[in-house]
């Protein structure tokens, strides 16, 4: 273990993980404390919805800029700015006196948090070789599943012990400070610019040949004119290749539908449990926790499967994941009052597992770095996340409009069928994605009996 953590890439990954974990602890603590905040600030349902919506709006709006700034100023500074900003906005939220103040601070908090995913993703893509990227990014992504599981056990006890939810905000605003220290100590934007890295580790990350060929100082692959102007591991990637890219566009659409299904499902699960399955509130709440547990397992297994079994192919994992979404959520649409609890848990575990095997759950950073270049992950991911956030935005009103009132209470089966349909759209988008390993779509590769295609990146990796 000591050997692993003496490697600079693992120190970087552990720091990026901690940043992503604190980000999720911080964003989910507001929801965990909502029962107390609603009572304290005398908020009604509409005002509560507004408070949550403004966070979401801030998060979505910054995505195109987040990617651009990450590539422009570098992931280290971007990560530090976002952690610093949301640490400060967290404590300002402890001083609100009404829901409008909370909504405004939630907007600023959302803007601050929105810059992190592109920075962390780009670091994982830059610091690991292709053969390890899937697993490395899977480790990074476990943070978003573990954070929501742990946050009720951190935020709520602090509030109850001190007698005020405001102290939870105060205490948690300090969680970002050790992460800032770790970013300062352990993160460097690029491996070859790190004074503490060894030649052996650089060889492992880039390969001897690539290291010999590239010594360039133009860090933005969109601004370089020749391959030898670039640092190792990068290739020329002009702006039009990033923003007019068929695969980025497909991921935008897939992200919209898969996060619509994911966010719609996990938001409404407890209500569905109470109103349709007639479960007690506490048991109904655990349906979401089980789905998050499935997500955690899915993220880890997805990375292992992609790197080891599929030899760094990414799109097959998403194809399987979207099919599982269709099956698991489609099956859940048949549940009625009296369904065995074990069956409900197993199905929603599978649904959580499946939603992690989509373009918004895992492997998106490795894929974008391989279809484009690691130096363009920030900008391309900004586009993809924007699509995903728009899907999240429409999920709530759409689900609400699809719930049918019956004599036995609300019926959610139409909403669940819509989530399953989102899985079908996600599958179609992923089927049309190029798989860089086989130079064509993965389904095309399978249907042609395993023949590789002719796709080539416009600029080869090696210098001429």
């Amino acid at each position, binding site marked *: 273990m000591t050997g692993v953590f003496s490697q600079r890439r693992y120190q970087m990954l552990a720091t990026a993980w901690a940043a992503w974990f604190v980000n999720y602890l911080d964003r*989910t603590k507001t*929801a*965990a404390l*909502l*029962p*107390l905040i*609603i*009572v*304290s*600030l*005398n908020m009604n349902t509409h005002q*509560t919805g507004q408070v*949550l919506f403004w*966070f979401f709006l801030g*998060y979505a709006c910054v995505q195109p800029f987040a990617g651009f700034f990450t590539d422009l100023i570098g992931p*280290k500074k971007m990560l*530090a*700015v976002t952690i*610093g900003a949301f640490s*400060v906005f967290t*404590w*300002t939220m402890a001083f*609100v006196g009404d829901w409008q103040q909370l909504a405004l601070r939630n907007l600023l908090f959302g803007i601050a948090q929105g810059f992190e*995913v592109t920075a962390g993703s780009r670091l994982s893509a830059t610091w690991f070789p292709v053969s390890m990227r899937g697993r490395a990014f899977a480790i990074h992504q476990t943070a*978003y599943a573990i954070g*929501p599981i742990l*946050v009720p056990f951190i935020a*709520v006890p602090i509030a109850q012990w001190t*007698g*005020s*939810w*405001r102290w939870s905000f*105060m205490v948690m*605003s300090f969680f970002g*400070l050790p992460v*800032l220290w770790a*970013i*300062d100590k352990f993160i*460097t934007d690029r491996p*070859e*610019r*790190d*004074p503490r*890295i060894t*030649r052996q580790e650089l060889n492992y990350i880039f390969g001897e040949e690539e290291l010999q060929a590239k*010594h360039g*100082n133009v860090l933005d692959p969109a601004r370089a004119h020749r391959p030898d102007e670039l640092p190792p591991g990068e290739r020329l990637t002009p702006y039009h290749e990033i923003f007019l890219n068929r695969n980025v566009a497909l991921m935008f659409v897939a992200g919209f539908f898969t*996060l619509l299904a994911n*966010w719609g499902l*996990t938001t409404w699960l*407890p*209500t569905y449990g*109470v109103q349709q399955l007639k479960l007690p509130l506490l048991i109904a*709440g655990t*349906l*979401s926790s089980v789905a998050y547990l499935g997500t955690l397992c899915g993220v880890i297994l997805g990375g292992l499967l992609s790197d080891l079994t599929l030899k760094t192919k990414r799109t097959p994992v998403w194809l399987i994941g979207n099919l599982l979404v269709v099956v698991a959520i489609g099956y859940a649409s048949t549940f009625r009052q009296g369904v065995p609890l074990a069956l409900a848990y197993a199905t929603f575990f599978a649904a959580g597992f499946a939603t*992690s095997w989509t373009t*918004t759950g895992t492997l*998106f950073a490795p894929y974008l770095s391989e279809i484009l270049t690691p130096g363009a992950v920030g900008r391309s991911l900004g586009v993809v996340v924007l699509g995903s956030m728009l899907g*999240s935005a429409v999920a709530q009103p759409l689900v609400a409009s699809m719930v049918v009132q019956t004599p036995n209470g609300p019926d959610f089966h139409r909403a669940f069928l819509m989530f399953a349909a989102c899985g079908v759209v996600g599958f179609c988008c992923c089927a049309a994605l190029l798989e860089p390993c086989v130079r064509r779509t993965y389904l095309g590769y399978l249907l042609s009996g395993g023949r590789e295609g002719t796709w080539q990146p416009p600029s080869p990796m090696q210098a001429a």
Partner: protein
Amino acid sequence: MATAVAHASSVIMALAAPVARMRGAGPQDPVQDFGSLWGFAVALNVINTLIVLYFLVKMWRQKEGPAPLK
């Protein structure tokens, strides 16, 4: 990425919860809520912000360049 806003179940549970004064809810006015610890809370926030600014300025001044290999 995935569910990007909040732990969704808590939102619904919060809305479904009975509107009763629970331990941890506290008064609406933050000054009244912090009570005698108001000054301490403000001091903590000033310290938090100064530490954040220290790290941001420190990292902003760092220049990364090609490193000599070991």
